[in-house]
């Protein structure tokens, strides 16, 4: 089935509820439907066709059409299709039916759209605000076009996020906003009965940077990749790559094959160093710092290699719309191979040591259970999904860059626990090494950047996605008139995966909570689209609800 056929089947089902139908190539389908049919179409896509909910987005199109554009994104992974489901609502009644009751994965993003654009999801089960600061004015919606990107409303006193009440008889253990093993500010309220976790609530987005707003108001097409790269403190290349792909697809720009191979190599280098980093942190969280030290030592030569190739160890700054800025010269190929061989050997040694280590296994095995069905319903992606038996991997399902020409395996484990997620990453690291070797061998000669002679036309839209180390990174771009996107929507993998953490914690011992959270390889920087902040250390103490409310701590 291609996008057009999928669209036709939706059209057949819903008739004139489908206002507009267009396909961008065989893999992207764009539907506009009437607001009253939103819930039923979303349910049909999600339940009947098995499409995964990706994200939701709101665009203020009052200037162009007098309306708000609400967009739900779905992915049909087996058929390799992304579905963009638009619906328009008038500005006099900025309301849209919430799809969360039938598609639970939409929970956060519908709240985010309400916070940012001011279109209320009617019937949402958790109508609390999500991303804006507690003291942000109720009637200012940052992504509306008439709100300047540098608006600074005055701070307010005595406001707080309404927190969920713990179940009867349970105590609350706050983890965060600053907590030594989580590195970034986020706040989990873990509800415990004795040692056992019985529930959790989450507050994040402490440091929202408004990057999407910048992209559609202050930056130009080729400035965005550098800001996009800074969405994440570890895997930034995936964001610039994904953004560039979205613009390229929208504007019909073809990246030269050599450029695609270079992107692929950088993406895989990034996956290796990110998985190594994660394994180190996981060891650290468990209290096994030897792993942290050794794995990070193994990682360092790779960082220097990236510095040689790109000019910086982490933010490569290589992507522009149309290709990459730097070549990977033949002189450096042998060095790349040498570094990879070193890592491969040591990784193998580590791999052989881990399963025999009972302390390590005791923390990983059977903890942080995320059942397959829950992972699916919550829209989990990446190693979190693959560790719960969901065979999804953007590199195979929605191939980009040079992946359609390379051997990529989906690593799926059905243990559903922390160990399964660990094994997925261990395997993938070795796979990445082989992918890079193959790419170096098969890389064609030629240009690395497409010549772009014409302006990018306004009003075009496309999806760009990348399999980041943590899962699917998703960018959507609607091109605009002033050499910049009219709307740029970003969904980082942790945004999807974090929603799977509360069910993961259920029934675990309190001591397992840090590794449970750590096992999704959370990147709050991406989720909040905020700066990575080093934290001062904090301690976990158990407070009663009263103490908490009266702030006696």
């Amino acid at each position: 089935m291609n996008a057009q056929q999928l669209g036709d089947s939706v059209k057949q089902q819903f008739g004139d509820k489908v206002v507009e139908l267009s396909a961008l190539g065989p893999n992207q389908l764009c539907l506009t439907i009437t607001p009253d049919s939103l819930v039923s179409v979303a349910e049909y896509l999600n339940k009947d066709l098995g499409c995964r909910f990706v994200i939701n987005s709101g665009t203020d199109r009052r200037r162009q059409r007098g309306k708000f554009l609400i967009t739900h994104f779905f992915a049909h992974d087996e058929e390799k299709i992304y579905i963009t489901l638009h619906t328009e609502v008038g500005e006099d009644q900025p309301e849209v039916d919430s799809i969360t009751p039938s598609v639970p994965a939409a929970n956060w993003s519908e709240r985010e759209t309400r916070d940012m654009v001011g279109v209320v999801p009617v019937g949402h089960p958790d109508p609390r605000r999500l991303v804006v600061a507690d003291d942000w004015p109720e009637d200012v919606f940052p992504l509306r076009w008439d709100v300047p990107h540098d608006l600074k409303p005055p701070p307010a006193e005595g406001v707080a996020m309404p927190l969920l009440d713990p179940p009867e008889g349970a105590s609350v253990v706050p983890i965060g906003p600053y907590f030594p093993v989580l590195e970034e500010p986020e706040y989990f309220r873990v509800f415990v009965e004795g040692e056992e976790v019985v529930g959790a609530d989450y507050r994040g987005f402490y440091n929202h940077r408004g990057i999407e707003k910048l992209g559609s108001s202050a930056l130009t097409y080729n400035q965005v990749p550098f800001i996009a790269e800074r969405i994440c403190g570890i895997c930034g290349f995936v964001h610039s790559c994904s953004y560039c792909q979205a613009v390229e697809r929208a504007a019909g720009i073809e990246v030269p094959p050599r450029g695609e191979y270079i992107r692929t190599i950088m993406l895989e280098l990034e996956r290796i160093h990110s998985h190594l980093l994660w394994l180190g942190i996981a060891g650290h969280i468990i209290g096994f710092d030897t792993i942290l030290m050794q794995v990070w030592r193994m990682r360092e030569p790779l960082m220097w290699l990236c510095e040689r190739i790109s000019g910086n160890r982490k933010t490569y700054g290589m992507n522009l719309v149309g290709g990459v800025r730097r070549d990977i010269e033949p002189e450096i190929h042998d060095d790349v191979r040498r570094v990879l061989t070193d890592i491969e050997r040591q990784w193998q040694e580590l791999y052989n040591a881990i399963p025999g280590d009972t302390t390590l296994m005791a923390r990983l095995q059977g903890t942080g259970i995320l059942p397959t069905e829950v992972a699916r319903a919550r829209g989990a992606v990446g190693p979190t999904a693959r560790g719960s038996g969901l065979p999804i991997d953007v590199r195979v399902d929605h191939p980009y860059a040079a992946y359609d020409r390379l051997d990529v395996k989906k690593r799926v484990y059905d243990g559903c626990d922390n160990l399964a997620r660990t094994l997925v990453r261990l395997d993938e690291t070795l796979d990445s090494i082989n992918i890079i070797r193959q790419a170096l061998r098969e890389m064609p000669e030629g240009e690395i950047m497409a010549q772009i002679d014409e302006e990018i036309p306004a009003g075009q839209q496309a999806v760009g996605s990348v399999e980041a180390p943590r899962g699917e990174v998703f960018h959507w771009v609607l091109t605009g008139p002033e050499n910049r996107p009219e709307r740029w929507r970003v969904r980082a993998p942790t945004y999807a995966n974090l929603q799977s953490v509360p069910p993961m914690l259920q029934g675990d011992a309190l001591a397992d909570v840090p590794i449970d959270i750590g096992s999704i390889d959370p990147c709050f920087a991406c989720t909040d689209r905020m700066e990575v902040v080093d934290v001062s250390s904090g301690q976990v103490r158990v407070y009663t609800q009263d103490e908490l409310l009266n702030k006696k701590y």
Partner: protein
Amino acid sequence: MITSKLREAILCLRPGRVTLKYPFEPHDPEGDFRGYPELDADKCIGCGGCATVCPARAIMIQDIDQNTRRIVRFLERCIYCGRCADVCPEDAITMTKRFELSTDQGREDMVAECEVFMATCQRCGQCYKPPSALDKIMEPGFRDDKLKRGGDDSPYEPI
């Protein structure tokens, strides 16, 4: 368990000591490292291309009078992307290997200014650098950038 601990021990022992003596011994970056972007004022023709592409808005172009154009670079904003060096038609900007840029002299220490003598075009009234660099000006040049150092209407934190 024992064998696995032994394996781990070997993994630790084999590499020996790897920590570098940095900063007591210098550790220079390799390859085309993107460090401090240096501007050669003698080469600059004041075209403003660098300011137009800079993603961090670190570069501001000011025309202070008929004949003088000032290029102010707020390097604390710089993200070392090297785009300015890429687009400069005169190769006036080079990405150096300097990365130890912290200062105890305050933010002012991170501001670099240079002035370029320009002539005024008889037709449009805009500046250009003589003798005939106009044809090299690829970009429209001016960014209407509100990047001011302080000031009430500045949208940014005073620098």
